[in-house]
């Protein structure tokens, strides 16, 4: 059961990089993604902006605001993805909130909408179909816990997309089991409680979560708070197969100075940290 995303973790620890699509505009996003890939990014998480991003900290929240103000919509997002797909060869993951997925009716189909909310015309299928067509390989939805995820999971399976679940430090073993039954691509390990945002240390929660996932055969990538080479190294040395970085990149985008060069350099720094961490992994003592 190989997926393109899973393959991106196969040889060495992966760098998963997030930017908000359309921040500050679609052309810039393409340039930034190319820069991140030059710097060693293995998977790009492209945020589709939603007006109420409750899982994000201030940095990404503001990025989303900028992208919305600049006119980003789901259809423009899919256009952007399709264009990027021709330029970079790393998998693209869509990170967004459930209402956008749920509402999407396809670009020309809006007239077919009906207001009663009773029919099957609403649901995740049209969104997933459009995402697959544009070239998205997987979806992450931070406000869709496993218990509400069946319709989206079905649509993802039908169109060959991975559905990626977030495991929090507070996730119980029982919930973890349910998630792992449905997860594909990689497991998103939320490194600490709270929202996204760059921090200056690695939380103990990270190590606890990685221990709990030790037996899982899906790749494990840690996100929330990673911003420096040393964090990356420590997390990979702790058993992660990859790191997810968002706010540290979005901070650079917000500055709007030499953005592409700085993004490339930051990606390179973080990727190096991850590679350092991999060489530090203690050899298993058994046998």
């Amino acid at each position: 059961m190989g997926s393109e995303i899973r393959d991106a973790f196969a040889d060495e620890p992966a760098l998963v990089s997030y930017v908000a699509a359309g921040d500050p505009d679609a052309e810039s996003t393409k340039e930034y993604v190319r820069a991140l890939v030059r710097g060693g990014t293995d998977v790009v998480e492209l945020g589709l902006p939603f007006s109420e991003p409750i899982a994000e900290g201030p940095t990404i929240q503001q990025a989303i605001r900028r992208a919305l103000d600049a006119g980003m919509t789901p259809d423009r997002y899919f256009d952007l993805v399709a264009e990027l797909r021709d330029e970079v060869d790393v998998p693209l993951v869509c990170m967004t909130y459930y209402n956008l997925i749920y509402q999407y009716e396809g670009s020309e189909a809006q007239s077919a909408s009906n207001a009663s909310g009773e029919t099957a015309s609403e649901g995740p299928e049209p969104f997933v179909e459009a995402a697959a067509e544009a070239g998205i390989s997987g979806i992450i939805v931070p406000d869709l816990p496993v218990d509400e995820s069946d319709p989206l999971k079905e649509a993802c399976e039908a169109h060959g997309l991975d559905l990626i679940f977030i495991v929090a430090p507070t996730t119980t073993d029982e919930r973890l089991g349910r998630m792992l039954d449905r997860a594909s691509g990689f497991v998103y390990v939320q490194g600490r409680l709270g929202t996204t945002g760059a921090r200056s240390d690695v939380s103990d929660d990270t190590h606890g979560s990685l221990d709990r996932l030790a037996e899982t055969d899906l790749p494990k990538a840690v996100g929330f708070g990673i911003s420096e080479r040393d964090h990356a190294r420590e997390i990979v040395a702790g058993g992660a197969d990859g790191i997810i970085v968002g706010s540290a990149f979005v901070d650079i985008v917000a500055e709007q100075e030499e953005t592409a060069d700085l993004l490339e350099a930051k990606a390179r720094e973080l990727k190096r940290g991850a590679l350092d961490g991999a060489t530090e992994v203690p050899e298993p003592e058994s046998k």
Partner: protein
Amino acid sequence: MSSESKFGEYGGQYVPEALMPAIEELTDAYERYVLDNEEGFMDEFRERLRDFGGRPTPLQRADRLSERYDREVYLKREDLLHGGAHKLNNALGQVLLAKYMGKERIVAETGAGQHGTATAMACAYLDVDCEIYMGRTDINRQRPNVFRMRLHDAAVNPVDIGSGTLKEAINETMRDWATNVEDTHYVIGSIVGPHPFPRMVRDFQSVISEEAREQIREKAGRLPDSVVACAGGGSNTMGTFHEFVGDESVDLVAVEAGGSALTIDEENGLAPHSASLSTGEDGVLHGARTKLLQNPDGQILESHSVSAGLDYSGVGPELAYLADEGRVTPVNVGDDAALEAFHRLSKTEGIIPALESSHALAYLEEAALGDTRDELGDLVVVNVSGRGDKDLDTVIEESDKRDLDAAPSMEVFEHGE
């Protein structure tokens, strides 16, 4: 015996994974303490509502309104509840529940400030730490309530993003909760949010209809023909309706804020009203599937109402369900009509109603004197969800703007020697 997380297709639990264990813990506590009265929780809640809150609140015949509308009009006086609004029923219930659950810290969001005030009050009374998130716009239009929260020693955190109203305050409180779930309970202020909040808040507010149903039978000898309440998120609404839902002969009318117009400004992502129940579309916001003000892409629109407490882009999932089922009739009235109703009740009955409640009263005027005059029937109960002291600044300003005849003139007292 687990409580259902949905009302038909509405409701559910759409929240970040980090919050799920807290929500499961809360669901468990709700089922045990609220539904099963474990450790006598509900008995203690009722007793505290009586002694601290001042329940039962009266059901008062409104003599002049009855005359004006040529029918029997009764007012359920939640404005007389301690703190001046129905919000205390829920805040006291949840803060007490948090104590039973061993939580040490309370966070809450507030729009009008009534829920924040009620929560701060309940926290002071029950000795729990309290932090309130409030949009900057709302802070500016509800200053007396901000000061009241501070009097009860709550921290008030301004929220600057977006339009600085309730929606943004809810997002911010969710973020705090997600960071501090282990020792913190989030007291949601209406019948919105993920399960079990919509049911739990309704249960705490149902005391309104329990009393009203008894009281109207005692005073009028029968059930009312209709029950009218304003709807923001819908907590006073469902609280006032709940015990009547099974009474088929009773019409349940939810009055939303029609704002300045029922249109939508797509360009600016803005709805100049808050009528999500009557005009919204099915979607997912703040943990639940419900009716929302949103654009065709699913981006949430900023709402508007002259009344801060109704200014919200969503509505409780149970109301969405009951409206679809035809059991609840959603209607709306505009800012102007609400302001007139505010002055009318103040003048004719000696009661200054909250601007939120003024919407319910304005509908009475429209329905009783307009084309739909017979829809309300001969015996009507209207919930006065809160008192209007908090709204005086807004009412002065908005009445001036409109040159409202109904508004008292203060001119002769200005710049006097």
